[in-house]
């Protein structure tokens, strides 16, 4: 399919991009920023979005890359899934994000699609959202009035809706390091390359042979990613056995509001999240759960 006609701009600095955005805003034009285009272009081709101006962020070097900022890693919004998947800093300090990025789509999409684009697009089935939420990251958003920071807990606001306002750009994400934590992103799909039906992002800190602390994010269990707070609480002090972890993860559906679709109804998802959480936590803790080996593991 062919999108409607649109103008195209490729600024080389964030300031220039913001200038273009506010000019378009004043003129009343519909405008979209383009990151990897892996979600925006299909939506434009289906004519579900008809921007008259597309501002490509791909020529702004300062927006990509991962830097070590002491207790944090700062990840540029334009960093591709492929870089996330292969970056050594991430592998050491945030293996959860690295693993999740590796489950997104296929290599072609991962070479184009970006971390920031996925987060702003905010598809509830998107794989980068729950891991970021679980880490408690902070989002840096630039707009006409300068920069502001948004906590992960406030960033995701609903279906395809985030705290990024019209005229603003997500520039980077500051993620605390979880060096030494066990991590696993368990994604449940029908075929290898598919959006998550349900997925669970898990990080555990093991101390004295038990789970001392756990952080869990749930993918596609509501219109936004969720923290599995009841399960996190139940996992504190949990023994490293399948039974104990399963009992804790039986809380995983609490507070969720999953949708029903062709891949499963809400009832199924509420059940599934408990199984997927159990498997995610066990793998994060270095245990091998029962169950079918999936092709992408």
């Amino acid at each position, binding site marked *: 399919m062919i999108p409607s006609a649109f103008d195209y701009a490729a600024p080389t600095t964030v300031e220039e991009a913001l200038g273009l955005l506010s000019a378009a805003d004043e003129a009343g034009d519909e405008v979209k920023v383009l990151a990897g285009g892996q979600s925006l272009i299909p939506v434009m081709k289906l004519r579900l979005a008809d921007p008259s101006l597309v501002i490509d962020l791909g020529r702004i070097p300062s927006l990509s890359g991962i830097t070590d900022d002491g207790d944090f890693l700062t990840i540029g919004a334009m960093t591709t899934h492929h870089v996330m998947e292969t970056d050594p800093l991430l592998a050491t300090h945030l293996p959860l994000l690295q693993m999740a990025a590796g489950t997104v789509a296929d290599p072609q999409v991962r070479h184009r699609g970006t971390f920031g684009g996925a987060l702003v697009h905010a598809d509830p089935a998107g794989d980068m959202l729950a891991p970021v939420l679980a880490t408690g990251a902070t989002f840096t958003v630039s707009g006409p009035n300068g920069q502001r920071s948004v906590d992960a807990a406030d960033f995701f606001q609903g279906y395809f809706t985030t705290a990024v306002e019209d005229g603003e750009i997500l520039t980077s994400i500051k993620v605390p390091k979880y060096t030494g934590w066990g991590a696993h992103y368990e994604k449940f799909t*029908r075929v290898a390359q598919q959006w998550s039906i349900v997925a669970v992002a898990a990080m555990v800190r093991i101390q004295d042979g038990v789970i001392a602390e756990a952080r869990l994010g749930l993918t596609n269990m509501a219109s936004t990613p969720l923290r599995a707070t009841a399960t996190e609480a139940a996992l504190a002090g949990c023994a490293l056995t399948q039974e104990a972890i399963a009992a804790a993860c039986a809380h995983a559906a609490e507070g969720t509001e999953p949708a029903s679709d*062709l891949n499963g109804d809400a009832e199924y998802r509420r059940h599934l999240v408990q199984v997927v959480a159990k498997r995610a936590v066990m793998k994060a803790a270095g245990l091998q759960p029962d169950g079918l080996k999936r092709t992408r593991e």
Partner: protein
Amino acid sequence: MTTTAESGPAGAGRADIGRNEIGKARLRKEDAHLITGRSRYTDNMVLPGMLHLAMVRSPYAHAKITAIDVSAAKASAGVLAVLTGADIAGEQGSLPNVWPVTPDQKAPEHPAIAVDEVAFSGEIVAVIIARSVAAARDAVELVDVDYDELPVVMDLEEAFTDKVLAHTTLESNKSATWVFDSAEAGTGTSVEDALADSEVVVERTLYQQRLIPAFMEPRSTVVDPTGEQITMWSSTQIPHILRFALAITLGIPESKVRVIAPDVGGGFGGKLQVTPEEIITVVAARRMGKPCKFTETRSESLQVGHHGRAQVQRLKIGATKEGIVTGFSVNLLADMGAYLGLITSGIPILGAFMYNGIYKFPAYRFECNNIFTNKPWTDAYRGAGRPEATFAIERMMDELATELAMDPLELREKNWIKHTEFPFATVAGLEYDTGNYEAATAKAVELFDYEGLRAEQKRRRENNHPVQLGIGVSTFTEMCGLAPSRVLGALNYAAGGWEHAQVRVLPTGNVEVVTGSSAHGQGHETAWSQLVADRLGVPFENVEVLHGDTQVSQRGMDTYGSRSLTVGGMAVLAAADKVIEKAKVIAAHMMESSEDDLEFANGAFTVKGTEQSTAFGEIAFAAFSAHNMPDGVEPNLDSEATFDPVNFSYPHGTHLAAMEVDTETGHVSVLKYVCVDDVGVVVNPMLVEGQVHGGLAQGISQALYEEAVYDDAGTLVSGSFVDYLVPGAPDLPHYITDRTETPATSNQLGAKGVGEAGTIASTPAIVNGVLDAVRHLGVKDIKMPCTPSRVWHALQEAKTSGGVQ
């Protein structure tokens, strides 16, 4: 990926001539250009002054068109014309259905552009003709159509009740009722009596979901009306049938139509059609006097390309306590969709002769009601009728085995036709020429480690393992090589089932083979080259295969129904044999000997008992220069032949699937898949392997992944590949394939069709395996596709209803 494929020497030299071509795993001649970007698909065609079309489609599944305002669209930049159904009512005709299955078959008029009423979502109501694709697309949104919505009927069983009508112009949703009764046909006894007398009767209703043939290349058509003829390039499986159909539908002399199928990126039956878009492109091109192109989007392809399967199967099978099947009763509802396409109505009937499978029970009755709904029409999809039949009988054999507490293989063995009993006249009225079900099954059982897996299954059941194991069996046969023309005539199909070929000998001794088969991925260029190289003794590389252009290949019946080798290939061989006969006369003259003293081998005629010989190339040149021809002999070796098969071909095989079911999530996975197919004599094992692998993928996909889903208003919900799930390589198992070889007797090579075998056999193997894994937990049936959610819900229901056996 698996067994076989002992590849032949690359580029066989002269020493290889005439020997062993048949059976060699030759690499495909057609691949180099396909994988290096030198392919030419229809959408690659660019003609001077070419215009572009975009279709305006109804968002409603059933509505009256009350007004169409095209003024804004017409005024839009780059738009040259907008045509509605009313504008072209006088010339568009009605799309052809060439298979009226009964004399009283009912069908609505089927205009390419709807005139008064639309009957499915996506039906065309207007066409934009513009200077660019973008301009055409933009204008689609500017066409203002007023609709009066009408009630829709989407569910097949509901449509059968006629409470809501799919068309206001018809009094019933029923198009036709087609019956075969073995007692009436004299091929067996009464099924009613047989079931009444049976010690065991198993009754089930099974569902064939609606499928979408998801070929790689979306359909595309270019029409050039500027020369003497109208030339159409189209992404089609059937250039010859299309030419004839365009002529009769549009009233254009056939001689004024040329159809070219260039590179075609797959079809699976989905391009065995005369489409509204093709008709519209012709009409537009003639009106504008300029070349026109229409290429569908993937969304359109999924939405309105014809669909497949979509049946409700009400089945009853009877048996003795010892497991001897006594009769099988089949009652179908077949979803036509809103219209009858080219052979929509005949698809379920193609299955009618196959519900008895490989078995020899005495009584059989088949009844099919063809029903209209407000969905796109269904039509051929890989296997066309036969996968449905095989699924029904193979699922029922497993249900019966469960009922009788018998091993499913043992039950089959008790009932199948023994290899000593061929040729065998079946209860459905066919004559199976050959087969050896014992041999294929024995080989499959061994490769599979049937006993070992049964033991593993027992262990997992006993220790209540979260991942249960099931074994699915499918012992299939099918009728293919469509088709003896007389049989088609008896079934009221409009055309014949022959195929045509021409073998042309060039002055150098190189050979051109012109075939009426129309390859769209199968590898005919390779296989036909092997056939002719073998027969004429010329090098494989020196054979060129031409196809897919009605001006080059004047006669043909095209490619579908696993017919190309067993019908088209035989025409090629017959034409090659005629070349040898013609060459012999000239060779005798050249060597001053008698024709009776010559023998032809390895590409040369030799005078028996002497060293004196003349090579094929020398004769070719002699015929070309014509300096010294025998009196009255034409200076030309070219020959042609038309082959009409005397019987179908009946490939068969035994497929075994070990299925793992994760009872915690409902996820299903194929642990091991073994198939031993008998496709008779094999021309190229690599091509056979490719057909089997692809076929398996498609059959497994019906069992586990694919389904066209509609909402209550009649809109396709699974309208993109996000929701219409097709598997990728990681989702499919490592297949273990092997073959037995029981030559067919109905053609000179002994070959049988292989294009559909994998698809037909695998679906029941998979579903039988899934059910075998969870039946002990109380699960009785799971509808296809067996999604994790469906499997999990089935397990939950079994638990709550306490159905554990």
